[in-house]
């Protein structure tokens, strides 16, 4: 916190030795009344729409029946959680989820970083601006639209196959029907849609670099690569670390809509992830308790990962999120 107290100087001067703690608190609260005014709407929102519904997670320990309600449904303890670990299908789904996440971290996560560095190297501001504007664009499309486009492009009679055929003489590939193509396609879609947008945060961090640093490096005879290595990357480091920690926290999230729309009988084996599984079971088959249990389990793993990553980051001298 590099910010000073809410109310400096004047307030501190109140002779306070004799004042009781409650009185002190009252004075403080009064002094901060406008801050509370600012805080209240948001705080109320969090309590009402985030925390009260969270209590509903107790149905993870019940055999929930809507006609009995949250308190009268039968309590069954950890049974749903046991199912998570014993069910063959859940294990396969978990594996798919983790595999996809790690592939994403390996392939999709670095792309915005590389793009940001490339953009940072461009000196012509106008060209840079145009490129930026274009690569942000796909972010504005919803997944429905993106998958719609992908399907049209990748059909066996689609534009991609026609190009492959006419340029390289390759026979049509049924991209959407081969399990092997599922994960690569998901990752490519994520890159296409989000990589450009992901550079925003990184470019902002880069804009804070003092140009004199580069000038000094040039004087010292450092070439382009050394400049990137010694100036650009260090400036990005803390941002990358934070993004990485947050990404780990969502390692069991796969982006429901995208996967859901890409699934078909061929890709079910490799593509069914926790999010879609919970939807099929928890909502469509109306097994709310089980769905909630899986959700809780997911959150718990996320929490552990985020704590571990944060600890690691601090060990390596980074600030971390907390």
């Amino acid at each position: 916190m590099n910010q000073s107290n809410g109310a400096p100087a004047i307030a501190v001067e109140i002779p306070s030795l004799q004042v009781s703690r409650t009185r002190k608190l009252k004075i403080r609260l009064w002094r901060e009344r406008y801050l509370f005014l600012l805080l209240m709407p948001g705080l109320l929102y969090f309590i009402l729409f985030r925390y009260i519904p969270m209590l509903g997670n107790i149905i993870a320990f019940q055999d929930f029946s809507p006609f009995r309600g949250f308190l009268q449904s039968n309590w069954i303890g950890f049974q749903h959680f046991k199912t998570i670990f014993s069910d063959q299908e859940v294990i396969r789904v978990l594996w798919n989820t983790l595999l996809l996440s790690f592939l994403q971290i390996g392939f999709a996560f670095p792309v915005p970083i590389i793009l940001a560095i490339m953009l940072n190297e461009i000196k012509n501001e106008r060209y840079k601006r145009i490129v930026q504007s274009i690569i942000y664009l796909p972010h504005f499309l919803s997944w429905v639209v993106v998958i719609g486009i992908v399907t049209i492009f990748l059909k066996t009679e689609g534009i991609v196959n026609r190009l492959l055929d006419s340029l390289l003489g390759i026979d049509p590939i049924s991209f959407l029907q081969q399990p092997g193509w599922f994960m690569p396609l998901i990752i490519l879609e994520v890159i296409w849609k989000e990589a450009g947008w992901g550079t925003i945060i990184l470019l902002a961090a880069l804009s804070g670099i003092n140009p004199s640093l580069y000038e000094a490096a040039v004087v010292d005879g450092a070439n382009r690569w050394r400049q990137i290595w010694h100036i650009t990357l260090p400036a990005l480091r803390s941002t990358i670390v934070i993004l990485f920690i947050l990404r780990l926290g969502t390692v069991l999230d796969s982006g429901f809509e995208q996967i859901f729309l890409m699934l078909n009988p061929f890709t079910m084996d490799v593509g069914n992830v926790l999010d879609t599984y919970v939807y099929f079971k928890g909502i469509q088959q109306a097994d709310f308790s089980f769905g909630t249990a899986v959700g809780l389990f997911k959150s718990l793993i996320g929490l552990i990962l985020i704590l571990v990553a944060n600890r690691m980051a601090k060990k390596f001298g980074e600030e971390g999120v907390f």
Partner: protein
Amino acid sequence: MYNQKSMSGRLADIMNIILLGLLALLMLFPFYYMFTISFTSYEEYKLSELIFWPDRWVTDAYTYILKSKAFIHSIGVTIYVTAVGSLVNIILTATMAYAITRNIWGQKVYLFLVLFTFIFSAGMIPTYLIVKATGLINSYWALIIPGAINSFNLIVIRQFFLSIPSELNEAALIDGANDLQIFTRIVAPLSKPAFAAFGLFYAVGHWNTYFDAILYLNDPSKWTVQVILRQIVILNDTTNSLASAARDAARSGHLPPGETIGMAAILLATLPILILYPFLQKHFAKGVMLGSVKG
């Protein structure tokens, strides 16, 4: 900025420019393709889907869509929800973020409450129950209030506030301004670029709202454009969703166009946010906004 005169440096520069240019074209291509196809006649499209420049530019697809009252109405609805929603988002996010920037009583608790929601969230049913209990069912507010604050955005905006030099606050305090005035007169104006950026983040979310509309709004005339778009694109259900247009097509002996309508619908539904985008982009191009993620 940093003058590099060596040959290898020049070469790297040129490579970089070309590579980025190619990438940008790759990103742009689907948009271009959708654009041309949406102006292609269905007959031509059926003959060859590989069309970079149609023989004949036709506006059939657009005429079809614009005849559908439901589609146009839903765009109006979505503009309304997006505008009001983003405004509410920004106000609630910024005020709360600012309050916990300052050394307010209980600051750590509030911060924890926010961070906790990164990880743990409520299920669909309890949330539905709260929306119902607060009387929001079937009201546009049901699309706005339940997602009023995004925790991640709140934390980033808070970081931004933290980077504002504290001397400004102190000077204002000495002038007799209260915290509210400091926020509205000093902090908020300084944060315009950040507000613009996050306003856009939120706006995109509202624009693409889909399932909440189905879940919370019982009256179909309140549905957002993505719901209609989904019917057109995913279900390719033009005969149903745009029935009267399809009938006209049949009378004139043409096939009711499938994909070309889908493309036109996507472009029309994306257009408003694309128009908004350059105005806001100007702001975050300045780059100020997030010099601060690092805190």
